[in-house]
């Protein structure tokens, strides 16, 4: 792997000197990758992005871009493109003048600016919109202009702060594809902040899951979904049935109501309190096994979602794919659960924080 384009080393940020918003962040961002910072609000992901953009100063630590320290460089000298959630298009300028802005402040020639604007508009499929004012465009169009404006001066790194947060679902998906396409075409490095896990899963090369100012896990989408590093990641990404349990022996957990659950709790000793997580789609219905009464059935077309009463939990969910010729379970019936030992994820009972 070549040298990372961005390197965070021990970066911390605190506004009041006591509570850290970002704590001891070490992060390498590879050239050309699409990295998503994912986390609930207040987890430090946006602050991390703003420190990289230069709008926030780290309280300690260093940030390098292309091997040079930039945490003391003012934002306008960093040459990083930024796309904001609310577009931040200048309302007193036309689309073309918005796009010309980063070029004209750099002293680019008029002819060059005109060609680059035409190319940029073409890239975001808005050719012919140059003379409009931002207010005359839809939200999706405005965000495409903002995207084009952040890319037009050919930055090697582009930051996006929840760029699709204000758009409706359909537009969001359309623009997700568009951003992916642009990323693939230009080979630019993108750092993307979102709190929408499905957006993170579909778009990213790697995802950094933030919580409490720390990266809880950094990895590819499937790694984070299939092999969450701790109970927080398991709960934040995708759906999970979360149960408190005690390790009975090397192959069994005992749930709080005494139900025994087969799995392999690596690295835990007997008697230790743990959290067991099972994703609903990994719970199989079987002819025989552990019995669970159905309290609710939600039909969703390609699958149905069952609310079960299991192991003392009133809200244990299972997903069952829609199958030809198989009747749906009814409320009040009981089903039998087959939970493969590999489906059970075991985590330390205390949330993973150093």
């Amino acid at each position: 792997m070549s040298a990372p384009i961005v390197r965070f080393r021990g970066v911390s940020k605190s506004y009041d000197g006591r509570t850290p918003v970002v704590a001891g962040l070490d992060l390498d961002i590879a050239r050309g990758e699409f990295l998503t910072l994912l986390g609930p609000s207040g987890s430090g992901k946006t602050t991390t992005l703003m420190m990289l953009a230069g709008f926030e100063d780290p309280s300690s630590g260093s940030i390098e871009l292309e091997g040079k320290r930039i945490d003391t460089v003012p934002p306008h000298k960093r040459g990083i493109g930024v796309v904001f959630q609310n577009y931040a298009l200048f309302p007193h300028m036309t689309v073309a003048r918005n796009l010309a802005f980063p070029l004209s402040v750099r002293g680019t020639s008029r002819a060059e600016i005109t060609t680059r604007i035409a190319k940029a508009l073409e890239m975001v499929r808005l050719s012919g919109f140059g003379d409009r004012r931002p207010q005359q465009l839809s939200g999706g169009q405005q965000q495409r202009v903002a995207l084009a404006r952040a890319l037009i001066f050919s930055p090697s790194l582009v930051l996006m702060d929840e760029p699709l947060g204000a758009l409706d679902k359909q537009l969001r998906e359309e623009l997700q594809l568009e951003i992916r396409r642009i990323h693939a075409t230009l080979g630019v490095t993108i750092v993307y902040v979102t709190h929408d896990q499905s957006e993170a899963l579909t778009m990213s090369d790697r995802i950094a899951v933030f919580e409490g100012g720390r990266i809880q896990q950094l990895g590819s989408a499937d790694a984070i979904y299939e092999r969450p590093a701790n109970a927080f990641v398991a709960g934040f990404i995708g759906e999970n049935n979360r149960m408190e349990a005690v390790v009975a022996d090397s192959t069994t957990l005992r749930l709080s109501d005494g139900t025994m659950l087969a799995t392999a709790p690596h690295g835990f000793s007997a008697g230790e309190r743990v959290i067991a997580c099972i994703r609903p789609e990994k719970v199989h219905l079987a002819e025989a096994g552990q019995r669970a009464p159905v309290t609710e059935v939600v039909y969703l077309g390609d699958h149905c979602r069952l609310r079960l009463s299991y192991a003392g939990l009133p809200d244990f969910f299972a997903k069952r794919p829609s199958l030809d010729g198989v009747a749906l379970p009814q409320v009040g019936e009981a089903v039998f659960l087959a939970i493969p030992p590999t489906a059970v994820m075991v985590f330390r009972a205390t949330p993973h924080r150093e």
Partner: protein
Amino acid sequence: MRRTNWLAALLIAPLMLLILGSFLLPVGFALFTAVADREVAATLPRTRAALAAWDGVGLPPEPAFAAMAQELGQALEDRRIGDMAQRLNFERTGMRGLLLRTARAAGRLEAPYAASMVALDARWGEGDTWLLVQRAGGPVTPLYLLRAMDLQRAPGGGVQAVAAEEALYRQLFWRTLGISLAVTALCVLLAYPVAYTIAKLSAPWSAVALMLVLIPFWSSVLVRSTAWFVLLQREGPVNQAMMALGLIDAPVQVVGTRIAVVVALVHVLLPFAVLPMHSVMKRLDGIYLRAAASLGANGVQRFLRVYLPMSMPGVLAGAAMVFLLAVGMYTAPALVGGDRDQMVAWFIAYFMNREVNWGMAAALSAYLLAMTGAAIGLARVLTGGVATIGGRA
């Protein structure tokens, strides 16, 4: 639906009546006064009727002379001659004397009146005198509107400039415009950094700073202008301070100069520039400046290309406000200005209070209104060109 419309109309009826009664009617009345011509028709109705058929060539027929002599005598007896004499004297100096003299002699005049009146005063034998009376028959006259622009009716019809030594008002309007524009420019230049700083201050301090801007409103314009009179006079603190610092050797006469008028007006009107600017600037989202920085703009470029244009609606609103108020200012120039520094409002007051010439006061007011209307229109056009703030669809 119709019922709710009725109810809505009923609810706003008091407001509409208030606007009608306290704004539209008085302004309409004042504007009409600028062209109204009632005095001759009220005092000399029969003369006016007799002159109506006259073609204006030579002298009017005998019945006009007879009616004039009788009605003047009657009017003097009834003590109603003053307004009419003043009205005609305003248009041509000397008319008051002629009319009063004729009225006093009315009892002695005998038919044929044409001969006896010309014998009394040769001016009755001039067609111009009679044309003047005929034209003043009303009901409307362009006299005041023309005079307020230093124009008058030419004897042969049409319009001509008044004699150079009588010309006054065009210069007055230019002076008013000049002082108002200077005050507006100074207020904008001084208010912009103030509003900018207040908008940048954090929560408790911005409120305190805004309060400080508003404190001058606690005292009246009169008090503030008088304070400038005290400060700027020959023995005042400003002169003393400058002499103590060795900047000047002898006290400088500031009171009674154009500078004093501009200083006092800027002080009185500054808050009106700060407030609209501040209200636009505090809503100006910092995200635009961040975006500009991320796009490579340095501090100067961010200010000139993003902040300044986006704060322009506030600047124009503040400038329009200051200009409108400055144009109509009376107190401050009257207190600290000299004779040559008075503005239109001073002359309006002069015609109202001293001359009791409502027509002239109304004509000056009408032009002032037109001037402010043009300023508002210009501000509208200019702000319309600037995009609205916070365009986030």
